[in-house]
């Protein structure tokens, strides 16, 4: 039994081409502690965790683990020594069973034979799940499990390596409230078993629910480590951002103008039915509901990414019949997708190329690109949106999440769309960048745009929207004005326990 901290990372520095990702970063974790790692996007949290996981090597600094200096040579090495990572995107093979996934690559063999001992493996997997109080049939393929169940399998797998430290990166992003409560219960079990837990989340309230201490990072440096009870929510935000954030939701009210978008009786089989609503100049309408209620599907249908089976879409009074996103963009509709890495950006392309991608017309003479105009446009948005990048030629993949989202925003600002649909615009983005994105929404409204914002985060919906539409199982179950909306009212509509008249 060691007496000191389980893990100490001291003076960690790491440089990438063009950026100093970490500079004298520190971290100290004791057994039985839940250390929350907080910081804006690009503050260096992921890099520090990648170093801990052995996926990257530090340029300087030392790591003391169980009282001894160590270097984690590879993810495999770190795992063997007892460091387990649970990433947002799970590392499970969908077609394989729960037991196969837990013992992937190290399945127990029948003695002396290269044949898997299925019975032993299934029993061991059941025990691993029982240790965290979870009952799942270990023979089921992972693909048939819910996201929450998959996460439990990941955690069971992590523990089966005799982990001393478990790192959870944004574990709550895709969980329902009920599932989240279960996860917290599990983390408390881990604490009792004297494991160290590092917990990363952008939802600050979770720090207060589950954390024991909080390590705050800013610009790649260690800002400070505090016991959770020493701090208020505002303190954490201030320390992360480095300044006072006056208003988390800088909502501005604009006079409501003419109708820009009207959706009438829109339906698509197995996705949503009879969806009707209108968007006016200068307003943000929220579209919320539980995951799977059909919100993203409605957005994709309006944008002609998938074609609706029935219904009408009118823009500024005129019916539009878009067959492809290209038509929708030409008509004046923009969609900021939920998945910005796969659908929002071409990651290998530069900030410049991504910025102009949806409106190449504006920088083309005939078939030819006007390089100078293109560079000017990109530079303008980098300045205006304060995109943190070494330059407009930097590939989008090297930017942090918040800055990537700003590039997506720049792309749609450049199209000068009349109607913009934001699908989960701030998921995985820190408070500072969130507020900036809200301010940009205000700017869009000032220019006469109308915004439809899909979000699962109720504080954001309540804070920024003029009106709120709630969906449940493919139908709009109610509309609430800004004045009458409360979390409870939304949840009632979202769970279908009350169908209000639209």
């Amino acid at each position, binding site marked *: 039994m060691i007496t000191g901290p389980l893990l100490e990372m001291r003076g960690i520095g790491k440089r990438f081409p063009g950026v100093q990702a970490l500079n004298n970063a520190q971290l100290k974790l004791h057994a039985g502690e839940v250390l929350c790692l907080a910081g804006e996007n690009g503050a260096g949290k992921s890099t520090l965790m990648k170093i801990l996981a052995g996926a990257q090597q530090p340029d300087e600094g030392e790591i003391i683990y169980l009282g001894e200096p160590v270097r984690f040579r590879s993810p495999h090495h770190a795992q063997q020594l007892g460091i387990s990572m649970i990433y947002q995107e799970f590392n499970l093979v969908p077609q394989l069973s729960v037991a196969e996934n837990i013992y992937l690559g190290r399945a127990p063999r029948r003695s002396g034979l290269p044949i898997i001992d299925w019975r032993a493996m299934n029993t061991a997997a059941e025990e691993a799940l029982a240790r965290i109080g979870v009952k799942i049939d270990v023979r089921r393929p992972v693909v048939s499990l819910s996201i929450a169940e998959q996460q439990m399998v990941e955690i069971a797998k992590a523990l089966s390596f005799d982990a001393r430290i478990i790192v959870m990166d944004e574990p709550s992003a895709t969980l329902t409230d009920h599932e989240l409560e279960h996860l917290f219960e599990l983390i408390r079990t881990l604490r009792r078993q004297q494991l160290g837990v590092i917990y990363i989340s952008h939802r600050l309230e979770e720090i207060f629910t589950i954390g024991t201490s909080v390590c705050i990072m800013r610009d790649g440096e260690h800002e400070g480590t505090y016991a959770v009870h020493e701090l208020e929510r505002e303190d954490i935000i201030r320390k992360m951002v480095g300044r006072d954030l006056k208003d988390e939701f800088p909502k501005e009210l604009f006079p409501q103008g003419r109708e820009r978008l009207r959706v009438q009786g829109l339906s698509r089989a197995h996705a949503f039915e009879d969806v009707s609503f209108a968007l006016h100049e200068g307003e943000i309408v929220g579209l919320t509901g539980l995951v799977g209620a059909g919100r993203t599907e409605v957005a994709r249908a309006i944008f002609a*990414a998938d074609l609706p089976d029935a219904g009408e879409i009118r823009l500024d009074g005129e019916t539009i019949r878009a067959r492809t996103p290209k038509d929708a963009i030409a008509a004046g509709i923009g969609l900021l997708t939920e998945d910005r890495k796969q659908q929002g950006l*071409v990651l*290998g*392309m530069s900030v410049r190329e991504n910025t102009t*991608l949806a409106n*190449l017309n504006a920088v083309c003479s005939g078939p*030819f690109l006007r*390089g100078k105009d293109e560079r000017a446009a990109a530079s303008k948005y980098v300045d205006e949106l304060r995109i943190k990048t070494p330059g407009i030629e930097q590939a989008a993949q090297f930017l942090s999440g918040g800055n990537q989202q700003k590039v997506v925003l720049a792309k749609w600002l450049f199209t000068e769309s009349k109607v913009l649909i934001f699908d989960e615009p701030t998921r995985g983005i820190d408070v500072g960048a969130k507020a900036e994105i809200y301010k940009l929404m205000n700017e869009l409204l000032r220019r006469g745009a109308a915004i439809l914002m899909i979000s699962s985060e109720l504080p954001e919906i309540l804070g920024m929207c003029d009106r709120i539409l709630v969906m449940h199982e493919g139908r709009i179950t109610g509309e609430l004005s800004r004045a009458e909306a409360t979390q409870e009212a939304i949840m009632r509509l979202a769970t279908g326990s009350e169908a209000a008249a639209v």
Partner: protein
Amino acid sequence: MTRFIAKHSPLFILAALCLALAAYSEVFRSTANLQSVATRTSEIAVLATGVLLVILTGGIDLSVGSVAALGGVLCCMAIKALVAAGVPDVLAVFLGGLAGAGVGLGCGTLNGVLITTGRIPPFIVTLGMMMAARGMALIVSGGNNIFGMPDAFLWLGGGKVWWVPIVVTVVIVAVASVTLSQTRFGRALYAIGGSLQAARLSGISVNGSRVAAYALSGLLAGFAGVMLASRTSLAAPAAAEMYELEAIAACVIGGASLMGGEGGPVAALAGALIMTVLRNFCNLQNIPVYWQQVLVGVLVVALVYYDNYRKRKAGLITD
């Protein structure tokens, strides 16, 4: 500076290779030898330029060798038929060339439509085309080589003035280079290869651009077939066998990613030259042909490994 070198490493490798060989071998640096190297690279370079357009979209075109053979055969048959019908030689040659390139365009367009509208994987479609076009070349020619071409046909392949095929190749590579870096179509190809979803949701006409890429690849293949027939002054239905793989290798040595979104025609030309130069050197050193195959194969893999290593070090790509 390291970034610059890493980005253009195929050019530096080619330059270093040529300088080393020129210093080492007197025969290599002779004008006649360099001329022959450049001429012999021209067809592969033209094929590689077409294939590159497809590779940039994240696709593959295995049919270009066979399509080149079909283009060459049809071109020569058309010329002979036209000359026999009394059409002046020069006009017959021109029309024959058009026929050869045109059949390539047709094959490529068919590839593109089957891949986009038919939603069949590029590998399968172009593999099918590779077999079918070779079969068609054998059918229309009756399996025989076509000889006895009029004198005017020899121009394109350098039979009259040696630098014609080289200039033609350089022009094609230059046009492709400008198209890819300076036009909306070029940007669309890179975007599609980078992320098809993101390109579509940004309003790029994804299917149109992909069909165009395959069509152009076919067109250039047909044209390369005409060039090859002109240089050898005969059309063989068995010509250009395995050229598709040489063309793909040229792109990859030139730093193109088979995942799409990365690569350039000048670098692909450098890739093609690196292969020809190596073969040429082996010939000059009297290394047996079988060993040349082994050597070039090993070098292709080694060069790509080195290129990736350099890029990773310079932070141009991540894992």
